[in-house]
């Protein structure tokens, strides 16, 4: 028989989740309430974190933590919960780093999330959104751009795109995957388009 395996963290999350929010509801909440706050979140992180190249990593960590909490119970205010999670993560990271950056620490402790909350959620008109997506598509590498346009605008199938561009379906998928990653940043994260990393 051997030792009972230790219950891993993920297992615990699942067990608790069974008693908590139905997963689809938590998913819908995340998409509806959290993703539209991404621009504000990234601005907040940029103000409070030195190394800008780490911001997407922080975002991912925060989203994971927010999702975990939502599986148990949907937080009452998405906005304050998101920013409290962000703040806690930053404090954890500062504490964890070997060189304790006293200054950064002091800043974070005094940082008042309530007063640092962004204004009303941005309302993006379809036209602005179209412009942002348009700009993002134009910045994609040429083959990637062509794949995205043929798929999303012209509605061709992967097979048709492959034939048209004389590449394999796998490669089309690859291009679309790259395109999607760039689009997600523009749609949720930023006001200005930027090149894919």
């Amino acid at each position: 028989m051997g030792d009972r395996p230790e219950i891993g963290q993920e297992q615990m999350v699942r067990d608790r989740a069974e008693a908590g929010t139905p997963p689809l509801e938590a998913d819908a909440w995340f998409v509806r309430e959290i993703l539209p706050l991404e621009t504000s979140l990234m601005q907040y992180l940029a103000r409070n974190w030195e190394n800008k190249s780490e911001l997407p990593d922080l975002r991912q960590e925060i989203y994971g933590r927010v999702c975990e909490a939502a599986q148990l119970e949907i937080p009452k205010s998405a906005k304050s919960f998101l920013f409290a999670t962000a703040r806690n993560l930053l404090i954890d990271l500062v504490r964890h780093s070997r060189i304790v950056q006293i200054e950064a620490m002091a800043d974070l402790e005094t940082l008042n999330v309530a007063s640092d909350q962004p204004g009303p959620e941005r309302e993006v008109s379809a036209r602005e959104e179209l412009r942002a997506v348009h700009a993002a598509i134009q910045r994609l590498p040429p083959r990637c751009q062509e794949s995205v346009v043929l798929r999303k605008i012209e509605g061709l199938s992967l097979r048709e795109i492959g034939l048209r561009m004389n590449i394999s379906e796998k490669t089309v998928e690859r291009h679309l995957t790259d395109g999607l990653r760039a689009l997600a940043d523009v749609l949720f994260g930023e006001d200005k388009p930027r090149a894919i990393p």
Partner: protein
Amino acid sequence: MSGEVIKKLPLSSDRRVVEEQAAAFVIARRDREDWTREEEVELEAWLAQSLFHRAAYLRFNAAWSSADRVRALRSSSLKAPDISRIRNIVMRTAIGFLLLAGSGFAAKYFWPVPTSTYETRVGAHKVLHLADGSEVELNTDTVLRVAMSGNSRRIWLDRGEAYFRVAHDPTRAFVVDMGSRSVTALGTAFAVRRDTQDIQVSLFEGRVRFNAKDEAARMPIDLVPGDTVTATDSAVTLSRKSKHDLDTSVSWRRGVLVFNHTPLSEAARELNRYNTEKIVIGDAATARTTIGGTFEATNAAGFARVAHAVLGLRVEYLSGETVISQ
């Protein structure tokens, strides 16, 4: 964590790997035609592995959907070259046909269905209980016609504003027609407002599809809860509202109007929809003054009193009009 030269943040997972996998899953699942059951199981397992996986997947999935939704308003500048001319014409014709069918062409001309008309006076508020279990709340000064048959549920909003709570019935679409625009719903809650030229559709629950039979937006737009489509005769725009703003937009269901930094000109226009005694703003500076608070929709006099007492404005009652000025 094992022997990396580059110092990394002590985070739970490697973002690049997770994002790469999540985006690839979204594309494979949504765009490939040969997505298999085994792959679905594999995806489920990957999602169950970690909430970081789940969050990344949800984010990309939502982004890919947004990219779909802007296609609804495609601009000529984004068209891919050649090929699809013919395809487009074929598609447009097909869509035109569907719209014709959808607009009740068949129902109207081949199977006449009795139509009932409902109206509310200025300031009135009425709730209709339809035969299929759906509920329609009519706001002030609204004209609406209803035709129910065995295979369709059709509403024509000729004027005004209504909130719909649609009983679920997948076999009979629930269609609200507003001239050249329409909304199709299955089981859902949404509000529609029709002023002279402008139409606004806000979705509260479920799913609806907004259709336009004109140049402004040829492709249908699928709304998700929180979305508002605003259509003028020349443009169609889609925006998202917070839950709070959405609820505020139908505060008329409780008989009140909620203003928040609303210019007096706009507040007066709203109140005038509910009152025969109209409020007139006397000068430009007053029109720009903003007001906040909750007001009884049919109590224009109460509103004028607040403007006088709180904003220190002059209120005069002239033949059937209340003039507010500095």
